[in-house]
């Protein structure tokens, strides 16, 4: 945390009134107690102005500072100053989205604490904390507790919560911009309301990376004074020149391994970001193949075993690595060593994220960060060029969140509140409405959630005898206190797909290598080889829900790993890309290969221009493809995919699936689309929208997550499903049953609501179709340059229960019967 004498803008809630811009040396003396001032002086540092600003500001604050701006120390400084005067019990609660961040902070914080000579007990509490430690923390909490939103929710569900948090003075919410974009943030804000009720003179400090709309983030916190730090010098950022042009399609950027290796050799310590874990694995392998000097290079991503991640983290701190290939697991403020080069392989998808990643390079606030971007395919070159322009112009994606607090998270909060102690409905409603995201929550919605928690909230009142919550003497409580255990096991809003551990096969517990998604594991047969932890392994079998593998050194991995989460490109960036494609005059910022490729697209098909709605039909293998370039964002394309496949099904074209990106929609079917204009008629699509909410897979996926968060279905826990799998049934059945018998049920309402916000985005489709754009439908001779990358996209949605699926199943059944020598 080096500091320099830079200026900051200290701003009140309205950004236009910038005042108090002053050099650090003009700050009034005495803000920092002498011991602290001496400590800064001894290290040859000066505190940043925003660090002092946080110290002198009373009440809740939101600090916006770039990476490397000493944000964390700024957040903790008021606590340390306060604690220097003594305090009994828990004083400061620090919440961050990553477990690893808590560990990192504990380490970084111990340095000033020791050097200043403060006696402060600092402990972390996450899913990794031992049971003994957790128990002790509940009886005798430390003065500073570092934790995650989920662990906080768990702590708040214990009857001891008032005792633990009664002495609390400060809460620090780190990386709050990241939390605000998911339901984890909503849960955290509900927890914060609880904390404010337990400790009324609490003050809250939010710490955020640079965002477009700080006021919205402050409102999310329930109101806070915004303090913006100097953004520092502009980054040195450009495309990495590569010896050969990127391929037409695909991700991962293996073609650039040698160029990246050369850049690593020139730098001291490089971070190489890839967008997915699978790509990180593959790129790591590709790097090692060209690592002629055998430089120490590590791999770090969230699917690796904890031991493996720790080894890399420690090596980074010790300075023994030259490069680390990583994913979003290193996105958030982890502070390891002196990174001087950031390489982003693959399109950054989001300008804000790119800026934060760039900030990882050179943790010195007063020097420009150096970053290079490698596009994985020719389409991404366009996206990278657009993103670079956006960074240069300081044009961050608006993004962020503007939606009201989701009700499934509220249901979980109500149940967990009941675990801690009986509550009065009026009091809890008032408390919930103090949380930023729930400030406008109608009482009727709160009551619906409470009714769901108590009786299930069904039209058929079946559970009056077996209510989960009962009202006695005006207080709601658990009917059976033993259910608290199940409810606590279900805490959290992350509903990732089921993961299975991967281990090396050995007589007694082989080395853990990491984890893969259950769906991926189910697709493996013995002998299949895949990559994990940078090694090629051979699938041996599944034993007690653990994937057992053996080494398969020197072999090519046959199957790519993990379907993985897909990052959405921001709408702003999509639109920049569209403008760039449709403005040949701007193509000079693109490398020649990309210009050629776009010219080729123009020759084979056409360039999607803003005043047209361009689609293509082509055949590949035994499938027909229909590609539509809408540039309307992934959600709108996804909805359009659902609607169009529905209509294609009616037209007997046998649609099999589709994939939506931010730029385009690709549908594959058994027969080709002949009349695009008829398919895209707004009237027909509107009719479809009325009933498409029916049994489509996207809705069921959303319902599953919502039902899990709201506590209707139990999260699958490891070890719970070793046997007797016939006893568990799919949440799709619950969804279908509810739709048939209780279509107005709360959870269906939440599902529809979320679909409109997140998945449907029908307004944008209307906009796209209603502008009277000319529909250009090209019958291309084969896959077109622009469509090629879509064929390799993840996140394909299969059409279930259609004629296409039935025809395929029939064909496979016949083939299997023939193979087996049966009729």
């Amino acid at each position, binding site marked *: 945390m080096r500091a320099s004498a830079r200026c900051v803008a200290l701003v009140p809630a309205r950004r236009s009134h910038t005042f108090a811009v002053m050099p650090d040396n003009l700050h009034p003396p005495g803000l920092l107690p002498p011991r602290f001032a001496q400590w800064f002086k001894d290290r040859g540092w000066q505190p940043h102005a925003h660090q002092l600003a946080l110290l002198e500001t009373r009440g809740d604050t939101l600090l916006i500072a770039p990476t490397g701006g000493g944000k964390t120390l700024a957040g903790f400084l008021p606590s340390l100053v306060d604690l220097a005067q003594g305090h009994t019990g828990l004083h400061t609660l620090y919440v961050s989205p990553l477990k690893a961040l808590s560990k990192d902070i504990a380490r970084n914080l111990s340095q000033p604490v020791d050097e200043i000579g403060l006696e402060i007990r600092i402990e972390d509490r996450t899913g990794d904390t031992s049971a003994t430690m957790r128990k002790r923390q509940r009886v005798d909490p430390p003065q500073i507790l570092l934790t995650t939103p989920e662990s906080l929710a768990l702590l708040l569900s214990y009857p001891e919560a008032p005792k633990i948090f009664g002495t609390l003075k400060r809460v620090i919410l780190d990386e709050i911009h990241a939390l605000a974009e998911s339901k984890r943030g909503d849960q955290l804000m509900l927890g914060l309301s609880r904390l404010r009720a337990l400790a009324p003179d609490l003050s809250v400090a939010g710490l955020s990376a640079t965002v477009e709309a700080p006021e919205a983030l402050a409102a999310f916190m329930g109101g806070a004074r915004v303090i913006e730090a100097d953004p520092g010098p502009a980054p040195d950022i450009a495309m990495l020149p590569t010896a050969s042009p990127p391929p037409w399609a695909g991700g991962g950027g293996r073609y650039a391994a040698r160029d990246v290796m050369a850049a690593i050799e020139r730098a001291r310590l490089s971070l190489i970001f890839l967008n997915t874990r699978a790509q990180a694995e593959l790129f790591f392998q590709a790097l090692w193949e060209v690592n002629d000097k055998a430089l120490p290079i590590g791999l770090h991503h969230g699917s690796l075993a904890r031991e493996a991640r720790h080894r890399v983290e420690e090596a980074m701190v010790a300075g023994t690595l030259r490069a680390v290939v990583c994913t979003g697991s290193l996105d958030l403020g982890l502070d390891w060593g002196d990174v001087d080069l950031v390489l982003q392989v693959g399109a950054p998808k989001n300008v804000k994220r790119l800026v934060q990643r760039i900030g990882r390079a050179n943790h010195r606030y007063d020097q420009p960060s150096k970053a290079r971007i490698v596009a994985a395919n020719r389409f991404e070159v366009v996206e990278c060029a657009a993103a670079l322009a956006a960074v240069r112009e300081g044009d961050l994606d608006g993004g962020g969140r503007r939606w009201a607090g989701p009700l499934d998270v509220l249901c979980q909060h109500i149940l967990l509140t009941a675990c801690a102690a009986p509550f009065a409905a009026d009091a809890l409603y008032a408390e919930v409405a103090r949380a930023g995201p729930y400030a406008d929550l109608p009482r009727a919605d709160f009551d619906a959630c409470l009714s769901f928690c108590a*009786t*299930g909230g*069904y039209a*058929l009142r*079946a*559970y009056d*005898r*077996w209510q*989960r919550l009962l009202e006695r003497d005006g207080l709601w409580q658990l*009917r*059976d206190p*033993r*259910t608290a255990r*199940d409810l606590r096991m279900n805490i959290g809003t992350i509903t990732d797909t089921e993961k299975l551990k991967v281990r090396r096969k050995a007589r007694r517990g082989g080395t853990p290598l990491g984890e893969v998604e259950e769906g991926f594991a*189910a*697709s493996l*047969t013995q002998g299949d080889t895949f990559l994990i932890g940078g090694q090629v392994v051979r699938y041996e079998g599944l034993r007690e829900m653990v994937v057992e593998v053996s080494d398969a050194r020197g072999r090519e991995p046959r199957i790519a790993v993990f379907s993985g989460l897909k990052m959405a490109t921001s709408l702003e960036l999509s639109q920049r890309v569209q403008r760039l494609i449709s403005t040949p005059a701007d193509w000079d910022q693109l490398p020649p290969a990309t210009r050629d490729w776009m010219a080729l697209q123009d020759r084979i098909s056409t360039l999607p221009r803003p005043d047209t709605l361009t689609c293509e039909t082509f055949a590949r293998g035994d499938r027909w493809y229909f590609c539509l370039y809408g540039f309307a964002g992934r959600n709108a394309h996804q909805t359009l995919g659902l609607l169009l496949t529905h209509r294609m099904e009616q037209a007997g074209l046998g649609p099999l699936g589709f994939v939506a990106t931010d730029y385009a929609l690709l549908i594959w079917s058994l027969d080709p689309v002949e009349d695009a204009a008829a398919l895209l008629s707004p009237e027909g699509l509107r009719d479809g929208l009325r009933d498409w909410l029916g049994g489509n897979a996207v809705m069921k996926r959303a319902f599953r997550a919502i039902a899990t968060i709201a*506590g*209707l*279905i*139990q999260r699958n826990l490891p070890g719970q499903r070793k046997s007797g*799998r*016939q*006893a*568990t*049934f*799919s949440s799709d*059945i*619950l969804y279908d*049953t*509810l739709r*048939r*018998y*209780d279509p107005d*049920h709360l959870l269906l309402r939440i599902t529809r609501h979320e679909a409109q916000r997140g998945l449907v985005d029908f307004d944008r489709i209307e906009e796209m179709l209603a502008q009277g754009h000319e529909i250009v439908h090209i019958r291309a001779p084969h896959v077109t340059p622009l469509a090629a990358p879509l064929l390799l996209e993840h996140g394909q949605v*299969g059409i*279930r229960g259609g004629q296409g*699926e*039935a025809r*395929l*199943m*029939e*064909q*496979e*059944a016949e083939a*299997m*019967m023939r*193979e*087996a*020598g*049966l009729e």
Partner: protein
Amino acid sequence: MTPIQFAGALFHAQPSGALYWPAQDMLIVADLHLGKSGRIARRGGALLPPFESLDTLHRLEAEVARLAPARLISLGDAFDDDTAARELPPEVAERLAALAGRLELIWIAGNHDPQGLGQSCEALPIGPVTLRHIAEAEGPDISGHYHPKARLARRARPAFAVGQTHLILPAFGTYTGGLDCDGPELRALIGLGRAVLTGTPMLTRPLGYSAARQSR
């Protein structure tokens, strides 16, 4: 409907998961699990949508109306537990009684409902086969319990698992999951055989043949 030859007799597998035996004019269903949501709630678990018993009965009534069998046999686990059988919601009890008035209703005990409605038998030999809840080594028998399902082109559906000595019915109840026919338990029971998938169209695929790779 898909005809199945088993133990020298002819059966008609229905897309619904019910099995019709023409020679006996008998409809066979397995694992209705009536009262499942109630049992989970009673134990302090989640309050699942309480509509599954009505839904299951609704589908069963439709099969009875369509095929008009003289007898209906439930192969056990008709109730999610014995308490569920004793405390049937009034509407479910009425509809079961109405069904019993139209045909001969025979209950076989399952592991979930050993007592059931108090009229259950352990096993019922008819002609060449025995009807029971859980398949036994010697066979030939027709049973339920395992909730078999089978995969084709990456899609799983409840299925009839048909081997030389065992015919295992899919679960008929609405809130029931399934056990993969390609898994070790059902492979061991069925040996070489075939799976008849429920739903429309009904499809048949082999089971246990090494030549036919596991469908993924």
